[in-house]
Structures are given as C-alpha cells and as structure tokens.
C-alpha cells in the first residue's frame, strides 16, 4: 500500500476490509457500484466484490434506507449510501422513526446492524441544499450512533467499528476532508466508537472539535501557540456514544472550553457538550464556555459568504483570545 492514503480512498478501503472479513456486509446506494460513487468513495468495490454485494439503486432514499433496515433485521450488515447528507431529509422517517425505535419497541427482539454513510458539510460551494452539516439532526434521535471521522486512519478504523456494530450507525464523511491525506492504517485497525482522541496537548484551553473542525482547531492552536496560548484539541470522533469523560478530563488540565462545530449553533452538538460540562464539570471552569458554530442560516453559495457562516480559524482564535483574557 502507498505510504499515504486520501480520506476518500480510506472510505473504500475501510468498507473493503470489512467486506473481505464478513460476507454479510453489502453496499447499496445511488451510483456507488459502476461509477464508484459521486465522491469516488466506493471505487473498486464493485470490481472486487461483484454486483451481488455492491448494488446500484434508483434515486429512492426511502427505499435505500428502508431496504437496508429490512436486510439488517434479517441477517445482513448493509452499508447504505445517501449521496449528500442534506438528502437524509428524504428518508428521515427511517432515521427518526423506524431504525432507532424498532429494537426498543419490540422489547429487544430485533436489532438493526446497519451503516448509513453520507457526505456531510460545507466548504465546497455547493449551495444550500448540498452543504449542510447535519449531524445535529441525527443527534436529536435516541437510538442512532453517530460517527464523524477526521483523518483517513480514523475513517478506516471507525468504519470497521461501525460495520461491526450491532447498532445502527450514521457515518458522516466530510466533503471538505475527502482530498486530505494521511498515513494508511495498519491491518486490523479498529477505532472503537465513543473514544475521543486528544490530538494536540495543551494546558490553557480545550478545543472540542469534530470532523472538518479538527484540522481547523489544530490550525487555530498553531496560531495561538505563537501568542503563548497552548490549546488542547479533542477530536470527539463520535457524537453517540459521546466521550464526555475525555472532555471533562481535558478540562481538568485547562479549565477553559471552546467547542468548534460546523452545524448551526441552534441545536448543535456543542450545546450538548457544554451542558454536560455545566452539569458535571462546572467547578473545573475558570471562564465561561464559548461555542464557535455555524450561523443559523442556510449555507450560502459564494465562498466569501460561506466563510461568514461556518467556523474559521480566525473565529476560533478570536473566541480563545477572549477567554484567555477572562
């Protein structure tokens, strides 16, 4: 294998590894087979695993996710692709009402081991209906696990954990990260769901980030370091299960918290993180908490406008400076 791998290649690699070890893993989605996915995240799967395991579907989001559910209930481990995360709204019934509730309302009789993968987030100028960061939608639904990796190695490791999970997982692949590169993970690499990573150590402030905001927080940390402020960066990796222990542990050392999230401030995951901290870690804080989040507007098209409404390095740096002076 090459000594670097892109995030988009890591998606196909992660799925392929699981398909090799478990014949119940099958893929379905629009353009995923012959075309290799509109984001080229499933290149090579059809060739290696054939049309009985890699299925092109019609443009039928309800049928894709509903059929994945039925297959998962009856012995398969389907990996369904919804092209853009905005389109999750077309099959929202399955994510909000069917998949997450069936285990509970059948008294534990039926499990739904499936993965719904989707390209999430802005930064590429796709306009309002192809750019939303929607992980906060899924976060409102008890019964879904939510993964959002930031690096190619995590894509592979978390894909393994997601596919092996007996619970349903919504797997957000960030569009702005698809071309990023990293070291290829070793064989058998698995990143347990619900384990955050401290990706930079620092004593002055904790930046909690997810997916695209992880590299952003790291860049902000570099800038801040030049000003004598050392930021610790926590990559949450998953929203459910949420690794609150790592966040609280980091705060023990820093006593200052900034969450950096792309989804809108209104109802975003940062609100959940800060409410846990307010409940259980209030005594650890020496300053108010800050949330750098998307503005509560649909994503605009032009770069100059989009930059106004999603988190940037400058916004993170400004938020931290304000806290450092507190």
């Amino acid at each position, binding site marked *: 294998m090459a000594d670097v791998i892109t995030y988009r290649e890591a998606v196909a690699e992660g799925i392929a590894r699981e398909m090799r070890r478990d014949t119940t893993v099958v893929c379905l989605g629009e353009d995923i087979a012959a075309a290799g996915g509109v984001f080229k995240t499933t290149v090579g799967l059809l060739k290696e695993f054939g049309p009985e395991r890699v299925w092109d579907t019609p443009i039928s989001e309800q049928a894709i996710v*509903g*059929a994945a*559910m039925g297959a998962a209930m009856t012995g398969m481990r389907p990996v369904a692709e919804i092209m853009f995360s905005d389109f999750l709204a077309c099959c929202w019934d399955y994510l909000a009402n069917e998949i997450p509730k069936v285990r509970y309302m059948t*008294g*534990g009789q039926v499990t739904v081991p499936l993965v719904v993968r989707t390209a999430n987030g802005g930064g590429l100028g796709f306009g309002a209906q192809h750019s939303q960061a929607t992980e906060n939608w899924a976060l409102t639904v008890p019964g879904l696990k939510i993964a959002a990796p930031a690096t190619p190695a995590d894509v592979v490791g978390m894909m393994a954990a997601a596919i092996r999970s007996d619970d349903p997982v919504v797997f957000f692949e960030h569009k702005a990260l698809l071309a990023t590169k990293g070291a290829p993970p070793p064989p058998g690499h698995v990143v347990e769901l619900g384990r955050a990573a401290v990706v930079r150590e620092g004593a002055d402030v904790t930046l909690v980030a997810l997916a695209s905001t992880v590299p952003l927080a790291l860049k902000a940390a570099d800038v801040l370091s030049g000003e004598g402020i050392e930021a610790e960066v926590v990559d949450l990796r998953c929203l459910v299960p949420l690794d609150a222990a790592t966040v609280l542990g980091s705060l023990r050392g820093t006593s200052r918290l900034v969450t950096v999230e792309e989804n809108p401030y209104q109802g975003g995951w940062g609100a959940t993180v800060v409410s846990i901290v307010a409940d259980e870690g209030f005594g650890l804080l020496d300053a108010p908490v800050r949330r750098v989040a998307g503005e509560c507007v649909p994503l605009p098209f032009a770069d100059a406008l989009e930059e106004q409404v999603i988190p940037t390095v400058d916004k993170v740096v400004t938020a931290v400076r304000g806290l450092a002076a507190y």
Partner: protein
Amino acid sequence: MDTAGLLACYERMALIRRTEKAAHDLFLQGLVKGTTHLAAGQEAIAVGASAALRPDDYVFATYRGHHHALARGATPEECLAELMSRATGLCKAKGGSMHLTKAATGMLGSYAIVGSHLPMAVGAAWSARLRGTDQLAVAFFGDGATNIGAFHESLNLAAVWKLPVLFVCENNQYMEYTPIADVTAVARPAADRAPAHGIPGEVVDGNDVVAVEEAVARIAERARAGDGPAVLEAETYRHFGHSRADPAAYRPAEEVERWLKHDPLDLARGRLAELGVGAEVVAEADERARAVVERAVEAAKAGPPPDPREALTDVWADGGAAWRT
C-alpha cells in the same frame, strides 16, 4: 385448501375475531391505554395468506396488525397483555397495540408510519436472496398507503431487483375517515398501479379465506421461483371504526350492511358446509376459540406491570440505553 386446512383457518379467524372483541371491550373498560386499530372483518387476509406462507417467511404489518400477529403465531394472551401494558406482553409493554412484533415466528413488526414498512419488506426479501434462501417477505398495508412515496419506491426497487416480495393491500375502502376513492385517481389503488412498476397486480375477495390462500400461494410460488414481486389487492371492510371507539358514522348504512353480510367467518362457514362439515364441528371450533380468548383475557389481566427500570433498556444491542461515557 383441504377440509382440515379450512377448518384450521376458520378456527384461527374465530380466535382473531374474539381477541379483537376482547381488545375492544378491554379498551372501553379503560384497561387498554392509547388506541387500538381493530381488524375484525379483515381476518381472512391474514389467515389465508399465512396458510400459504412458510413459517420462515417474513411478515411486516401496520398498526392495524393484531390479526397478522395472531395469524403468525403470537398468542392472544401475549397480545392482550401487551395492550394492557403488562410485563408479559409480546414486546414487554414497550410496543403496544400498534407495534405487535414476534420476530421468532417471522412477524417482523407492525409499523405506525403509513407505508414505512414496505421498503423494509423489500430489504428482507433482498436479504433472503443474498443469503441464498428462498424465503419470501410480505408487506401487508392499507389502501391509504398506496399514495405514499415509499409504496412507489418499494415497488420499483423490488421490480428492478426482481425480489421475492409480496405487496398485499388490505383495501378496506377507507383511510381513517376518508374513502380511498375520494383521493385516488384509479379504482384499484394497489393493483392498478402495479403494472406501471412492471409488477403484476391482482384483485381478490379479501373476505374469502380460500380465495386469499390460493392467490397468495400462486404469487408466492412465482416469487420463490425467481420471477419477482407481485401486488395483491384484497378487498375487505373493517367492522369497527378506524381506531379506539370510532363509531364510523361516516359510512353509509347500506354499505355497512352489504359488507357485514359478506363476513369472512360466514363465508368460511358456508364453504365448510359445502364440504360436508357438520355445524357441530364448527361450533366446537368456535367454542375452543372462545375458551382460549377467555383464558387469555384473565391471564393477561393477571400479568404483572413492567418493572420501571425496563424503560431504560433495549435501545442498544448491549441491552442498555447509555449514549455517553
């Protein structure tokens, strides 16, 4: 269907009818919370179809699904206990009337979002194919569901993938309170649309258990042989209103009368008589059904309430509900 088979179907229908009556009475006594959607009058579809299916086939139903659960092996006691919020209920009292599920016997659930389970049945049929079995998946749904997008997405996907799934529409003529004919551009809401998706669509007398059994057996054989999905529209009528204590005053009296005369139990009794089965044999079947349901009501009533701690179990496959560390 042979005589013994028909007698067994009759007894099962009688059992369902009595269980539905008991559910209604228990609701009126305040012992059943929420709502019920009774299927009295529609028994022949569940029972006839089940007679044509194998025990390892998959069934998906709607909130009007008591008859399917009972036809697919759930006992009146576990169903009534579920309705009465007892720990002994089919789904540990977490499902209720609208979600009767018995996965162990292939009753993969009752779903309360209209039309939502059709794609699931497609997926179960797909899974059967992937696993190399010749199991079928059957989705039972109401006429109202045929105007939902998921119906059309499911028919198309099942057709292009040639999956062994049977779409069985229980056309009881009404959605909640609106006649289906008032809001649908074709006369047979399911069967007329099937050909547009490349699927054969048949209509059957849904109150005739023999006709249903024969039709389902025919389309099941076709699907098992690899010839793909089929739509069966079973014409029927619900005896009760849509739900709860709905007196169904919106239905014209002569229409109700006409359908009540076309009762599935009466039809089966007539067929049994034609086959030379004596009235006393039928009466014995009725008596057995009565006794089972009577005991079921008492046993279900005596069931313990659920342990409140159960509210926080069964979200995840590890049995728990923890969403964070």
